[in-house]
């Protein structure tokens, strides 16, 4: 009997390890032979811990299981997939999952993340095999044809980046995976690394073959201890099986992979700052040009891509670029793992084709707020993304459509707020976060954000709100145009969207923000 209890960090955070231990103990006490598989999460975090049982008709799920529920589950014979108050039936038929288009997250939660056998059985390494027989030029062509755009935030076409690195001449090239995932409201990179780490390894290996790079780094934020452990173990397993190292998969290509750990700096998610950090320096942003594709890590041509971007590649090679590109909206091709977070009833990962509206995502998929109160705003795209009021929920999920409304998709996070949210406080926080995380290179970012915080404190105290709001707008202009990177340059998005969509909240005096 196979029972699945996720080892995903968010599942563990709500008790999955204790539940796994309780199931094991209960099974032993009752003399029932069970095998517990620690799978990744399906991404339906609102159901975690979600315990699944393999039955002849497929996997049956039991949601929100706590230690106290375990004896009852055994009484009900859950191991046979029997009914129980928490039973959600066939997991694949749950609407939240059934409505998704799982190109990249197709294995998440299904397989044992560290079983190569499971991985291969579910289509793993088909992409690399196709890539090796197609050759470097055809790989780059396929990635271009797929229309894949960088999922880290900027949406730059991945194929074009790869082509630049492929053309560059150098003694050494690098593949760097940006797994710094600092945006609040996002966890897709984490889910990939914890649920399907070989997929990322495969994607990076394909990138290496495509551009002639022999060394790769996965830069993972220190806030993800489990993902770090999983990636390290998966790399060891792949090495032992000949999928990494010299002559990968029997080919003439060599590729080594190593995990490096960040140190709590949000700005190190910015690609050039990340490269500085990998080199052992302060994570200060480099001016561009030169592009990392020409002069990247240690001055060598470097592909630096987000985790989702790289993890999307095996599917594209295995199933064909057309299959990926045929879904989507406008110039946003393929799928996006939208991450529903914050005050939302059904928080989790929802991979779907571009084009669904913001409202469908928040109200229908997310089910509205967790508190049951009305939605006031959604911050899309992390701490540098705009706040959208419900009146803008008709915006289709598409890079260009969001940009047209002064917002961004970013890394796919949507943070929901109910009507108790204090938008002036959120605007102040955006400035505060920028001040805290600024790398210090440009004055508008470093000083402007600190001035922004002070100005908001005056506004919230009711001191000359009109004059001070005008000052904030000026600061935003300066930051927008005088910043080297998007930390300083995009902080105006959350600030101005809060002011523009919720002007009344900046006029009524409030208590000053809690002192630091």
């Amino acid at each position: 009997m196979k029972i699945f209890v996720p080892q995903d960090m968010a599942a563990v955070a709500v008790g999955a390890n204790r539940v796994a231990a309780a199931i094991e103990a209960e099974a032993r006490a009752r003399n029932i032979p069970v095998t517990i598989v620690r799978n990744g999460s399906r991404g339906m975090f609102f159901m975690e811990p979600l315990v699944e049982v393999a039955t002849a008709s497929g996997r049956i799920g039991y949601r929100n299981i706590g230690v106290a529920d375990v004896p009852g589950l055994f009484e009900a014979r859950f191991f046979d997939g029997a009914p129980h108050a928490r039973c959600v039936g066939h997991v694949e038929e749950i609407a939240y999952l059934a409505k998704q288009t799982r190109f990249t997250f197709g294995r998440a939660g299904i397989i044992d993340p560290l079983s190569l056998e499971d991985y291969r059985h579910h289509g793993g390494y088909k992409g690399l095999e196709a890539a090796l027989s197609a050759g470097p030029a055809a790989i780059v062509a396929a990635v271009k044809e797929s229309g894949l755009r960088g999922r880290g935030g900027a949406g730059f076409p991945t194929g074009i980046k790869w082509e630049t690195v492929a053309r560059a001449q150098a003694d050494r090239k690098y593949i760097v995976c940006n797994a710094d995932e600092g945006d609040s409201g996002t966890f897709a990179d984490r889910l990939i690394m914890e649920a399907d780490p070989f997929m990322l390894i495969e994607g990076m290996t394909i990138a290496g073959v495509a551009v002639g790079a022999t060394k790769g780094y996965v830069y993972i934020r220190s806030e993800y201890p489990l993902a770090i452990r999983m990636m390290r173990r998966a790399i060891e397993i792949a090495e032992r099986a000949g999928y990494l190292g010299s002559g990968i998969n029997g080919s003439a290509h060599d590729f080594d992979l190593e995990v490096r750990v960040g140190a709590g700096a949000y700005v190190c998610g910015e690609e050039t700052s990340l490269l500085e950090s990998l080199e052992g320096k302060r994570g200060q942003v480099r001016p561009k040009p030169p592009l990392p594709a020409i002069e990247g890590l240690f001055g060598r041509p470097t592909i630096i891509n987000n985790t989702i971007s790289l993890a999307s590649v095996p599917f594209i090679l295995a199933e064909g670029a057309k299959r990926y590109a045929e879904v989507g909206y406008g110039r946003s091709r393929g799928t996006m793992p939208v991450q529903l977070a914050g005050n939302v009833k059904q928080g989790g990962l929802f991979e779907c084709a571009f084009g669904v509206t913001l409202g469908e995502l928040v109200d229908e998929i997310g089910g509205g707020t967790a508190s049951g109160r009305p939605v006031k705003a959604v911050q899309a795209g992390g701490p540098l993304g705009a706040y959208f009021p419900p009146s803008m929920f008709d915006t289709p999920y598409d890079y260009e459509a969001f940009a047209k409304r002064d917002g961004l998709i970013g890394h796919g996070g949507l943070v929901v707020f109910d009507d108790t949210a204090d938008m002036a406080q959120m605007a102040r926080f955006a400035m505060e976060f920028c001040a805290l995380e600024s790398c210090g290179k440009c004055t508008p970012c470093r000083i402007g954000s600190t001035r922004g915080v002070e100005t908001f404190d005056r506004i919230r105290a009711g001191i000359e709100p009109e004059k001070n709001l005008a000052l904030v707008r000026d600061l935003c202009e300066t930051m927008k145009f005088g910043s080297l990177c998007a930390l300083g340059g995009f902080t105006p998005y959350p600030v101005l969207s809060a002011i523009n969509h919720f002007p009344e909240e900046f006029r009524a005096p409030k208590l000053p923000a809690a002192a630091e």
Partner: protein
Amino acid sequence: MDQTPAQWNDEAARAVIRDHVGEEGPLLPILHALQESFGHVPRAAEPLIAEALNITRAEVHGVISFYHDFRREPAGRHVLKLCRAEACQSMGSEANARRLLDALGLDWGGTTPDGRITVEAVYCLGLCATAPGALFDDEPVGRADAATLEALVAEAA
């Protein structure tokens, strides 16, 4: 999970540093390894690292101070990291944190006088769909409402 870091000692630190000197870009791995062994990266580490990597002490200092992770002084016996980013704020994390800090008489980053617990801020743990999020001695905690935090702190010996 009790983590009892070793007392700082130059010889042991040199050995930790030596393990990483041959790597590409060894400085961050060294700093992480030192913090893992000793619970912090004191000033005494700077000349040792500078010497091993053949860079200036000022450079080493500049790097350590840039990153939020590296502690200059030992932490308490337990470390509670509370997420202060937006998704957790939407679920009331700030009020919970304020209450807890007040009850402990601490400010962010502070350690109780008995050395029992240090409370630090983090900005997102990827637990944003089960917010508020926290890390208690590296164990993730989700749906960390005021009562959950209180219970965690009460347990910490």
